[in-house]
């Protein structure tokens, strides 16, 4: 295969999307379809003592009302991190218990959406309330769980220790010690949680925008007591995932039960307000960072301790120190992570779940170190670069941090920076701040079973695991097949997100491309091999269609199985049963991470202290870039996410009532178009062939890591103020 870079090419589903022809789950319709709506609990914790559905049932058009009284036969789905399938272990409405405000307590199904919504609004319940706590900072000691001592898998979630970081820190001539916080935040993809549930001759068919069709399938089978072969989950497009749609949601089985009871398909679209409590979110976390350096700036010790919010019923683990421990060649390192139980729904993945916050904390501290040493922040980082993974002492399979920093500095004009805070001013009186930070994200691979079929007319169909949520997975797959098979990308059809075509491992953790691309490449190799056996003459210079025609064949199909370095074939069992089966970032003999450097300019208005971000330069090391256009959009999107996470977003916790107060898109502040200026992106585009055969690394999440500390450092450069609690707001700078 050619070693060349891949050319810019349009997104393969862009045509359908600009025409409004790409169908998302809620766009589907079925004959006789009923609409469903949920009623939710208004207490912070407790249980339902009585529920009155009479008024709901009396609404014209309402056909069914379900409460916990109807659903006690449901099995629990199990928590994804405890061998289960659900984003949390408890299934709403399977008992009268209310674990948090906003938990569903009833489902109303009706002929029309308006009737269903009216019905749901007429459900009334009384509760026996219990005391609850939603503030992790106020949790009692017994609610704080040391992750290393918890039931979480020891091989992944242990405390990281290299050398004696505490002693080394104590003796270090230059010390930085600081505490950082990140608030709860919500993914809020534009697409609402939507499910269409339909039963056809004993088979349950689910249309839902999900990142994990196989988990949804097996989770439903478990909950309903079905054979997984009786469940199909179809998710060709998601209107954004960002981790919210990682596993079995709470409402899916409710729609399925309603559909079975009614004998009609049921469409359930969860309204935006309910989404804040119906699915996972980024938990609040606190970080204490200690950095010790010698007087030349060599980082001899780093200690990272984090406390993160979890639910009462599940331990959502954290891997903060896995990321921070890889940033530099620390002489010694200690990472300790704790989880704090609160009365919320189980938090979960939100783009760069641990890495974004870990990098915010440690990279902000690195900027403080640069100032303590009076060293340029880029030079300090370059001096502490490393080719060796500090936590395992094995080499990184690839790491281009230095190149990211050098190219970014050049492109940004960093050499013009004057170090002193407030020393750079714009003509309108705004004070200018320039900040830099790096970010990192682990790379994993999940097993794939891929089927590639070609027909004599030249069409090629690829079926494998993956979920298209806008990252451009279909485009990248079409690009690799186009190159390998010598056909235009338009002749490639990619079927993913559908449990009928291939096992659908969760697409998250930026592992989608790194798993699917090499699998597609291997499938193409297998196809070319099979084609070469079909008749005389070399296959080169001929397309698969031409070879088939010459051999008098209609079609040819191959199947390949691809897994991560170090995995055994047992992983295919896990894949097919809907469980997590990823491996990484530690592989036999090497560790694989993606890296990024961000250079950010902020302008702080002199009077009212609004912070603008007119310019960002981002250099990304994500291995070979198979689809430059979609990768660039991912990178820009990651920067926008970083701006939102740093300057805009916070889910407001209501301690007296429970739950989140700002539960809509007006009050939960995401960036708008006018918040975004210039974002320049460049890729190193050097393949990491130790990691996989095509050399791709993950990009979707590394691009958000490092933005927050770059902005925070820029704000410090402008104002002299260190803001260590996100989001940075006007009141921090007045």
């Amino acid at each position, binding site marked *: 295969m050619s070693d060349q870079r891949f050319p810019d090419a349009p997104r393969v589903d*862009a045509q359908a999307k600009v025409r409004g022809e790409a169908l998302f789950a809620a766009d589907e319709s079925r004959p006789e379809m009923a609409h469903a709506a949920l009623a939710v609990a208004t207490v912070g914790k407790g249980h339902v003592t009585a529920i009155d559905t009479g008024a709901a049932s009396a609404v014209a058009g309402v056909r069914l009302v379900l409460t916990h009284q109807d659903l006690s036969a449901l099995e629990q789905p199990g928590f994804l991190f405890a061998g289960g399938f659900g984003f949390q272990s408890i299934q709403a409405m399977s008992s009268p218990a209310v674990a948090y405000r906003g938990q569903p307590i009833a489902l109303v199904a009706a002929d029309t959406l308006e009737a269903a919504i009216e019905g749901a609004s007429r459900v009334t319940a009384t509760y026996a309330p219990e005391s609850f706590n939603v503030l992790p900072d106020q949790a009692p000691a017994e609610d704080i769980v040391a992750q290393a001592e918890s039931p979480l898998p020891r091989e992944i979630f242990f405390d990281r220790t290299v050398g004696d970081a505490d002693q080394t820190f104590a003796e270090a001539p230059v010390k930085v010690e600081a505490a950082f916080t990140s608030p709860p935040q919500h993914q*809020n993809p534009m*697409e609402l949680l939507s499910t269409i549930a339909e039963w056809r001759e004993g088979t349950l068919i689910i249309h839902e925008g999900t990142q994990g069709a196989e988990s949804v399938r097996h989770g439903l089978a478990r909950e309903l007591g079905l054979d997984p072969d009786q469940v199909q989950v179809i998710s060709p497009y*998601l209107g954004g995932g960002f981790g919210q749609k990682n596993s079995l949601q709470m409402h899916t089985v409710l729609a399925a039960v309603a559909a079975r009871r009614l004998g009609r398909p049921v469409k359930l679209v969860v309204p935006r307000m309910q989404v804040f409590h119906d699915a996972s979110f980024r938990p609040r976390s606190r970080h204490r960072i200690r950095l010790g350096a010698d007087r030349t700036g060599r980082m001899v010790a780093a200690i990272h301790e984090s406390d993160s919010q979890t639910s009462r019923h599940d331990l959502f683990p954290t891997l903060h120190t896995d990321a921070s421990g890889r940033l530099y060649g620390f002489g010694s390192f200690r990472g300790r992570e704790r989880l704090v139980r609160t009365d919320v729904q189980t938090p979960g993945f939100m783009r760069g779940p641990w890495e974004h916050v870990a990098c915010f904390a440690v990279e902000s501290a690195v900027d403080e170190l640069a100032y303590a040493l009076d060293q340029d922040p880029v030079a300090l980082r370059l001096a502490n670069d490393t080719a060796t993974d500090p936590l395992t002492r094995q080499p990184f399979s690839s790491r281009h941090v230095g190149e990211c920093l050098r190219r970014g500095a050049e492109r940004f004009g960093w050499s013009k920076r004057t170090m002193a805070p407030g020393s750079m001013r714009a003509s309108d009186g705004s004070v200018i701040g320039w900040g830099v930070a790096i970010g990192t994200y682990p790379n994993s691979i999940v097993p794939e079973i891929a089927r590639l079929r070609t027909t004599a007319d030249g069409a090629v169909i690829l079926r494998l695991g993956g979920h298209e949520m806008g990252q451009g997975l279909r485009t990248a797959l079409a690009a690799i097949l186009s190159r390998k098979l010598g056909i235009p990308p338009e002749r490639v059809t990619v079927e993913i997100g559908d449990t009928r075509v291939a096992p659908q491992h969760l697409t998250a953790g930026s592992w989608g491309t790194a798993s699917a691309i090499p699998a597609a490449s291997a499938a193409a190799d297998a196809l070319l091999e099979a084609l070469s056996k079909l008749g005389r003459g070399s296959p080169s210079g001929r397309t698969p269609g031409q070879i088939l025609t010459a051999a008098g064949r209609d079609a040819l199909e191959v199947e390949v199985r691809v897994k991560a370095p170090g995995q055994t074939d047992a992983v295919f069992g896990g894949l097919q049963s809907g469980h997590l089966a990823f491996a990484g970032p530690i592989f036999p003999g090497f560790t694989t991470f993606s890296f990024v450097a961000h250079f950010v300019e902020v302008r702080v208005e002199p009077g009212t202290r609004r912070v603008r971000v007119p310019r960002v330069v981002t250099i990304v090391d994500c291995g070979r870039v198979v689809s430059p256009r979609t990768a660039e959009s991912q990178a*820009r999107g990651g920067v926008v996410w970083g701006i939102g996470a740093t300057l805009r977003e916070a889910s407001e916790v209501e301690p007296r009532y429970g739950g989140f107060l700002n539960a809509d898109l007006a009050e939960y502040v*995401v960036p708008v*178009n006018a918040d975004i200026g210039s974002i320049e992106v460049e890729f190193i585009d050097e393949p990491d062939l130790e990691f996989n055969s095509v050399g791709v690394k993950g990009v979707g999440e590394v691009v958000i890591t490092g933005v927050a500390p770059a902005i925070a450092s820029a704000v410090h450069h402008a104002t002299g103020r260190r803001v260590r609690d996100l989001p940075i707001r006007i009141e921090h700078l007045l």
Partner: protein
Amino acid sequence: MHSEREIPIRLRVNGRERDVDVDPRASLLDVLRERLGLTGAKKGCDHGQCGACTVHLEGRRVVSCLTLAVQVDGREVATIEGLASPSGELHPMQQAFIDHDALQCGYCTPGQIMSAVACVKEGHAGSLDQIREYMSGNLCRCGAYVGIVAAIQDAAARMKGG
């Protein structure tokens, strides 16, 4: 026009008359999507806070989730499905969105494009800053704003040229 139950209305959607009986509570968005099979306009918030449901009502961009269908009786609606030419040729704005990759997941895209076409016709695409301001009523969680602004600048020039 008094009724407790459904009210018969006639909408002119993408140049075609559509007769439908609607619940007075039904939004234009829900009627387009659930009754008329026009699912291009999307529901992102249902409260006029995201712009994913943007359509044209008598040539003006509006959020269809806060428009009662009964208020649109006898009036002209344009949706994304009607933007390309009858032969299927893309509108310059649609082509520009492809060329500048002004989308990722595609969910906000129909609303963005309908909003963008109106933005240009309003005369609000004269500069990058003006485009950003006047397109801020369309949220994009994938963060495709840079591409969106570039696409609108590009298409605005073509649309002027006729």
